[in-house]
């Protein structure tokens, strides 16, 4: 029921979180340009998370020394494309970080736009990797909703945590509270995507019924605890975060978000990890 596929669980959750951080923070930066709100540490955090995620993915490989060859089949392999695009994403945000060190207050640079586009592309291509025609549980739009949900959920809360810390003595209370608002909205959108994803995945599980095994029955048999824990933790995390984000908006004190965001991030990441463990754990292939 629960995979021991930790390397891929951590790779996907961390890189999706990193993309979320970049997409949301750069989008916020675009929205609140010249507002004085600090959005300095998100991209470096995303860079570190992506690097960590890539390292974890290496532990999945039987022969990591051959990983240089993994971009050789862009013509037909989604996995090849994923590795390339995640690599590009890492490169783009690294460049963005370097660019920002030289010119900190520059807003929407082409590199920033690129990081959003490449990031979204990376998550999109990651979902494609799992749309294998022989794996009905994964081969559904549930996977897309799930991955983008993870991106927004973890990205928003992480942005909120980082944003609240770097703006705790901010003078621009207005823009900070708008920032909180954007983070809150994106978190809730993420939650909605996640819920839709879970419902759709139940349908996909039920359709995985062949030759004596019904995946939904298997989940009902052994996975209810995990499913409940996942949903509860994610809801609790987003609930906690949103509550304080709204409060921060109301009181224009973004520093209020800091501690709750830390708890929320822990809850969301833990929940998402459980959910991703179940994702890999319900792998079931058709055929013999």
């Amino acid at each position, binding site marked *: 029921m629960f995979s021991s596929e930790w390397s891929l669980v951590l790779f996907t959750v961390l890189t999706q979180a990193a993309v979320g951080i970049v997409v949301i923070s750069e989008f916020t930066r675009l929205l609140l340009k010249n507002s004085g709100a600090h959005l300095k540490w998100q991209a470096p955090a995303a860079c570190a998370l992506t690097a960590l995620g890539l390292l974890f993915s290496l532990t999945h490989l039987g022969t990591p020394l051959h990983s240089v060859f993994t971009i050789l089949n862009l013509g037909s*392999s989604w996995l090849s494309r994923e590795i390339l695009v995640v690599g590009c994403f890492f490169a783009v945000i690294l460049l963005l970080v370097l660019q920002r060190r030289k010119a900190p207050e520059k807003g929407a640079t082409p590199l920033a736009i690129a990081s959003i586009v490449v990031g979204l592309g990376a998550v999109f291509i990651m979902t494609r*990797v799992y749309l294998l025609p*022989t794996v009905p549980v994964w081969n559904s739009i549930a996977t897309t909703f799930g991955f983008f949900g993870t991106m927004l959920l973890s990205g928003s809360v992480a942005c909120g945590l980082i944003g609240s810390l770097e703006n705790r003595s901010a003078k621009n209370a207005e823009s900070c509270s708008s920032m909180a608002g954007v983070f809150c909205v994106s978190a809730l959108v993420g939650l909605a995507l996640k819920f839709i994803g879970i419902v759709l995945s139940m349908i996909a599980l039920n359709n995985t019924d062949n030759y004596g095994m019904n995946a939904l029955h298997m989940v009902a048999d052994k996975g209810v605890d995990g499913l409940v824990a996942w949903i509860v933790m994610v809801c609790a995390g987003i609930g906690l975060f949103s509550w304080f984000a709204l409060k921060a908006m109301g009181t224009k004190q973004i520093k209020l978000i800091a501690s709750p965001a830390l708890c929320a991030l822990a809850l969301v990441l833990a929940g998402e990890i459980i959910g991703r463990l179940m994702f890999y754990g319900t792998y079931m292939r058709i055929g013999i």
Partner: protein
Amino acid sequence: MLKRPAFYIDTTACTGCKTCMIACIDKHDLPDGVLYRRVSEYTGGAWTRLEAGTYEQNVFSYYLSISCNHCQNPICVRSCPTTAMHKDANGIVSVDHDKCVGCRYCEWGCPYSAPQFNEKLGKMTKCDFCRDDLEQGKAPACVTACPTRALHYGEYAELVAKFGEAQIIAPMPDPSITQPNLLVKPGRNAQPAGSKNGKISNPEEV
């Protein structure tokens, strides 16, 4: 040397004895957990108690011996990120160990369980149609081993001419996914593909 090698399984002769599996393991010295050929038992049927205390039943069972079908559109080849998994000019799908990174993506996708991860090597391995035997005009180890002569091999077109068009029975997957070079002669108990009447009953053996 063949151009489009294919296997033909006569399930009316296959008793599920697993000699093909052992012959293959012996030839390739396969470690525990790696099986280039796998015999699945597909069984179904129920028992209904009658008034007199006796039972009515509709039990059926048959075996399918599958290695790799060296498909025309192999999902393992198109998914492999390094191009290590490739189909050569003789139609054989095999792994280039100089490139394989051991990501197991091919294993995730193949509906026949053909790619097998070798933990010691850290790379994927699989049936290569006993290329060394084919090059000498000899049959693959599994074919020469089969005590009931249920396994045959040859050029796909010749097998079709000899045995008729490929038929799909449970528990085989939809052939349009990979276009396997596999012909099966259904037995009297054969269930249609996708049937829910039975299930694979020997997961612990494959």
